[in-house]
């Protein structure tokens, strides 16, 4: 379970950034007082236009960024005070995740397993299960740099799941992927949900959100505009479809502000 309470994230602007943005503000708020809860065994979707603060929020959840204020609980651990402990519980996958091109999938998975403190026995078992699930046996000893995009994404998935995390964060995991590879990810998210894991899913593709998510939150300009279940969202819809409703909510908020 993830509990996010009143988190804010401020960045100090350099003089060059101030000049480019024609502003005298020395600080910019990327995330402004956001709170939500993600339950175990459910998929929580974080939606927002580009630059809304989604990635910054997800980076705070995965402890890459430290919130300026507020608190984050990951599987009962205070992620702000004990980020290293919290990271043991998190699997983080993005669409733009880079992999070490000069390593083989086997070497990469073994490396991350060691970093997460996975025992050799657990590594062997989990690797075998994930390799079979993702059809990875054929290319396990090839250099990652020589693999196709789909194969690389499978390696990324395996890397994300090798320590069997309680919480899995997917930041636009299907962006730029072909249909078959994207389907692998969708299946993985379903599996995570069925295994009782907490899943956070951020995407621009509303059909995927509609297909997978139980709960949804919409953010824009760092602020939370909507937070509730998918059925609540559908129930309050004024537009014809999810995409139109999402755009309506964001635009309405911008007009008010």
């Amino acid at each position, binding site marked *: 379970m993830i509990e996010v309470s009143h988190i804010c994230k401020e960045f100090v602007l350099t003089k060059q950034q101030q000049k480019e943005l024609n502003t005298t503000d020395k600080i*910019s708020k990327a995330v402004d007082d956001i709170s939500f809860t993600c339950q175990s065994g459910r998929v929580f979707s974080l939606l927002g236009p580009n630059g809304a603060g989604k990635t910054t929020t997800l980076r705070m959840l*995965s402890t890459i960024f430290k919130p300026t204020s507020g608190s984050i609980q990951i599987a009962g651990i205070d992620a702000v005070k004990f980020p290293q402990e919290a990271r043991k519980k998190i699997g983080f996958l993005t669409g733009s*995740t880079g992999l070490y091109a000069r390593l083989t999938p086997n070497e990469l998975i073994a490396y991350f397993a060691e970093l997460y403190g996975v025992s050799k026995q657990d590594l062997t078992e989990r690797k075998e299960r994930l390799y079979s699930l993702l059809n990875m046996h054929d290319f396990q000893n090839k250099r990652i740099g020589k693999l196709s995009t789909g194969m690389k994404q499978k390696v990324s998935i395996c890397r994300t799941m090798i320590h069997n995390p309680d919480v899995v964060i997917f930041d636009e995991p299907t962006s730029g992927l072909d249909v078959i590879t994207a389907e692998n990810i969708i299946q993985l998210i379903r599996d995570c949900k069925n295994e009782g894991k907490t899943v956070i899913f951020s995407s621009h593709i509303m059909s995927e959100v509609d297909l997978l998510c139980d709960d949804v939150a919409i953010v824009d300009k760092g602020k939370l505009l909507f937070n509730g279940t998918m059925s609540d969202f559908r129930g309050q819809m004024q537009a014809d479809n999810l995409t139109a409703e999402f755009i309506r909510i964001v635009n309405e908020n911008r007009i008010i502000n």
Partner: protein
Amino acid sequence: MIFTIFKKELKDTLRDRRTLMMMIVIPVLIFPVIMNVFMGISSSYQEEAATKSLQIGVINPDHVLIDELKNIPAAMGKKDVIIYKDTTAMLADLKKDSIQLGFYTQNDFSKMLTEKNPANVRVYFNATDVGMQERGEAYIKIIEEKAKKIRYAELKLNEKELTPIVTEYKNIASDKEMIGKLAGGILPYIFIAFGFIGCMYPAIDLFTGEKERGTIETLLTTPIARWQILFGKMGVVVLSGLMASISALFGLYLSIEVFKMVEDPELLAIIHSILSPGFILMLFGLLFPLTIFFAGVMIPIAIHAKSFKEAQSIITPLNIVMVLPAMVGFFPGIELNGVTACIPVVNVVLATKELIAGTLDIGLLSLSFIVMILLALTAVFISYKRFDKETNVITEIKIFDVIFGTYLHEERQL
């Protein structure tokens, strides 16, 4: 965990062809190539000196000087004497190197000698033609000594009585000291240069490259402290720098022991006495903190840079700034003292020179070592502060877009 990161980064680095070239291949080849070129030039120069006749132009109407020059034994170098009638033609030939020396006397040269007056000789030479002035002086000295002896005999003078002081100059410096002081700067220069170059590509690849490829974000989500990641990576950068220096040393060993490029047994014995295990240990004792210092200077730049290209464009000129001070080792006379021991790079070069010459003061060596350790620690601390700053680790452009993307692109995105 530092070791886990170190192991992986080392494996990754050793699979990078560009790094391997800079870390092992080029350093191993540098000494054999330099020595081969040097020995080739040197032997061809010696061969030329032994076989080539020196062309000497002379304007000497009474022929006395010409005869004297011709009488000088060939052991002093082969020569042909060419007689000129005027200086214009002789100087023109000297300019175009048809002749290498020109002697000019007045008509009364023989008369002045006979009458026991000073007889004038003007020697023309081209100073860019190395050694010609010395050859001219040597010829004149032989002729002068002969003339002196004739005069002493005619005047019935005792030569010893006219020599009140006999001076003997004795060089007490050993050959090892001479090599250390005069040429000892070359060795540390090469090791320092390769130490820097060896650090360069791994530093860029492991920090900027990781940012550019997006792998750093994945690494930061693992339960490892940032300082552990930094130290694991830094260890590989330092090791690569040291590996480049060790490879250069190995190249030196190959040149001497395998390719037998040094044939002179005396010189070989001196080189063997210089390159003792103790010397190599002390040299790398000095190079170790220097390499950490290099890594500590490069890493913050690599962390700050947004792309491999940007990092390379900053670090490459830095090479000149950092390695240029190592050239002080080429100048004789600059020695390790309280001031030079506090200047990074310079202190390592001068300490190595003194080490080769066997004249190293242990107090100054300790001071150099302490200065390098302090600088290395400072550089590590700066690297840590840079790496710990979250906006530096994730590509700044990305963060910039994340924060301002809404303002800049909101209409297009919606």
